[in-house]
């Protein structure tokens, strides 16, 4: 849950009709404030919202997609972790779960779909095929999707158990809360080093160095 610091000092003029609150031993004016407001960092709060409302886009190609179906169905019930709103349109989702082998023929399509997702976006490589090609060291199989898209969490297994995928999602939630995912770090970098009007295209390390030097 959110780590909040409750304000306990007296703040006049914040009474609330729903909480008239003269019942406790607190100062009369502080009680409704305490029940209705929290203070926290804005980033922290936004990340808390993001991590608990992941909308996955299942890029299911093979066996792992069947286990993904198990994860979202009633026995394992992914909705307990706030990530069950499965959307098949990349434009409506922020988490791509690549479940299954991605072969070379599928590569350009995976890239297109990743590019269509709005930021901030995350990618989970579910299973060893998506992570590294698995035991298909073969002429038509991509040796891990990180050849073409950035990956935040790799879930091992062939296929991973439903518990394994859930663990992966929880790990991703941790990273999102801390702002440590790739896309969040990039956003932070942009905010620190670049003027606002710069188009948010691909930024190379050389660009950043130039900016730094100019400033």
């Amino acid at each position, binding site marked *: 849950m959110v780590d909040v610091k409750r304000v306990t000092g007296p703040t006049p003029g914040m009474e609330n009709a729903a909480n008239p609150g003269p019942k406790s031993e607190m100062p009369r004016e502080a009680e409704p404030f305490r029940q209705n407001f929290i203070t926290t960092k804005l980033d922290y709060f936004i990340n808390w919202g993001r991590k608990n409302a992941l909308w996955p886009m299942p*890029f*299911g*190609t*093979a*066996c792992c*997609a*069947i*286990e993904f*179906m*198990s994860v979202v*169905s*009633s*026995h394992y019930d992914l909705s307990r972790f706030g990530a069950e709103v499965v959307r*098949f349109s990349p434009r409506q989702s922020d988490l791509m779960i690549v479940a*299954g*082998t991605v*072969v*070379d*023929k*599928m*590569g*350009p*399509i995976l890239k*297109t*779909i990743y590019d269509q997702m709005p930021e901030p976006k995350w990618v989970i490589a579910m299973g060893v095929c998506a992570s590294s090609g698995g*035991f*298909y*060291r*073969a*002429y*038509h*199989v991509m040796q891990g999707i990180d050849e073409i898209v950035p990956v935040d969490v790799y879930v091992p297994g*062939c*296929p991973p*158990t439903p518990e394994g995928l859930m663990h992966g999602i929880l790990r991703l939630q941790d990273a999102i809360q801390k702002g440590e995912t790739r896309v969040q770090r990039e956003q932070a970098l942009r905010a620190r080093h670049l003027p606002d009007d710069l188009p948010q295209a691909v930024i190379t390390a050389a660009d950043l160095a130039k900016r730094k030097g100019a400033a």
Partner: protein
Amino acid sequence: MTPRATPEAPETPVEHTDARWNSRFWGHTQGAEALRAKPTVRVLEEACPGAVTGAEDRCGDLSLTVRAQDLVRVATTLRDHPELRYNMLLDVCGLDRMLLPEGDGGERFHAVYHFYSMTQGKRVRLHVPLDSEKPEVDSLVPLYASANWGEREVFDMYGFKFRGHPDLRRILCHEEFVGHPLRKDYPPDRRHMLSRTYSSFPGLPADTPEGQRVSVMEGDVEKIYINLGPSHPATHGTFRIQARLDGEIIDESRTEIGYLHRCFEKMCEAHTFVQIFPFTDRLNYLSAFNNNVGYAMAVEKLLGLEIPERAVAIRVILMEFGRIMDHMVTIGTNLVDMGALTNFWYAYLPREEIYTLIEACCGARLTVSYGRIGGVSQDVPENFVALAHGVLDRLPEFVDYIDQLITKNVIFQKRTRGVGVLPRDRALSYAWSGPVLRATGVQFDLRRAHPYYGYETYDFEIPVRTGGDVYDRYVIRMQEIRESMKIIRQALERFPGGPHIVDDWTVALPPKNEVYTNIEALMAHFKLVMHGAKVPAGEVYSYTESPVGELGFYLVADGGPKPYRLHCRAPGYYIFSAIDENLKGAMISDFAANLGSLAIVAGELDR
């Protein structure tokens, strides 16, 4: 398209010498008289003199060598002769004999055809040697519709040209691929990157990016091109269908597959016989164990191995559970596509129970790798019969839920009756099998037609319907779930004791306690792990009734630790090859219902 005229046969028939009837491969000689007495050989000798240049009958597979220039004539005779009536071309594949020991000093490349005659209940395999420099042969598309995709796959994998084929281009590998990967001189891991996606309609104004809508005026009619897949919620896998629409009617569709081509066959050539089991799991991953058994049966057939009673019973029970799971997912996802989400949850809960049962047997849920040559990897738990009965007792509840919600549901019937009908003769020409074929009125099930594992001793029905539409496919699957439960109950009643795997240390691992205490067992274990199972040289085709249809494995072994060639005859491949014909003239909204009812699994389709 008509086949190219074939040159006239020589006037004088070739003299029959005994040497001519020797095995092509390893000098396995058989009586010429017995071979010539077979009706297929006799009729072909009469109708196409000189066309058959060799014959072999091994493990019950009749296999003939046919000259390339006579192929069309031979195939026409096979199909039309009243005594033969080989009405299905089950499979086309290739064979590169470059690394085989010299058998007959023949050509490097062979095209291999498998035919089946439903009236005779017999199979025949044709080997057609092709020129090493310029491998070319006439196409069989005018005779059998299934040759279309079969020949395209061989073209993709081996580069054989099929003269007269209407659309000879790559099917599994991507458009920028160079070379033919199943040739023996192609390294298994040489990749070629694909830079962009391609349209299946070359005449489009531009190759359209995914999902972009393009309309073209043809006369005064506006035709709209749309793209479905390969990442589309209704495809359940990785198929891509591009369609030209006239209003809501599909004018023409072009299907593209290969988006999950994981090089199964090349991987098999690079791994030992036992290491292949995990690869077979991932063919039809909805019922992984059925593939294990299909492959194990091929190897056991070549070995001439009898497996223990208990292993047979375990295989039968788990294969039938696999059939139930497969049908559950097919029905569930098919209904989801039509907007009936509830059934999906009803279908998935019992699946979890079956998963738990399988997990108790081998430790894995989905991709089990439980089969082994000569049995199964480990014995079932002691309380297996009780566990299985427990699952069986809870299953009917969920099946009944779906039945009550759907079977007599008017909305469902309106969406499925008369939708996706393929006539019976076309279905046979496309070499359909399994529930989709039985929905067209053909009562054909390998468990009944060619019983294996004692299926003839079980009391069960083969459901058959005549509509051939999506509704009938659904009903047949529902009935088959109940029939499978009947089979499992009977198998559990007579569940035998004894070993779970053969006691033959050249193919099966010795028990662990022996390995730790007995030097012979330790050596056998070491030899088996390091050098692989000892499988004799030869070729077989073995088949089982998988939940989708006839799952066949064509195995060529050269006596080494790895298969020389393992071809999987995937039922879904030939069922799906009819999709363009099936969709023509249909409504675009029926597409999802139709596709889901075919039960195509991408892993098996693309291999």
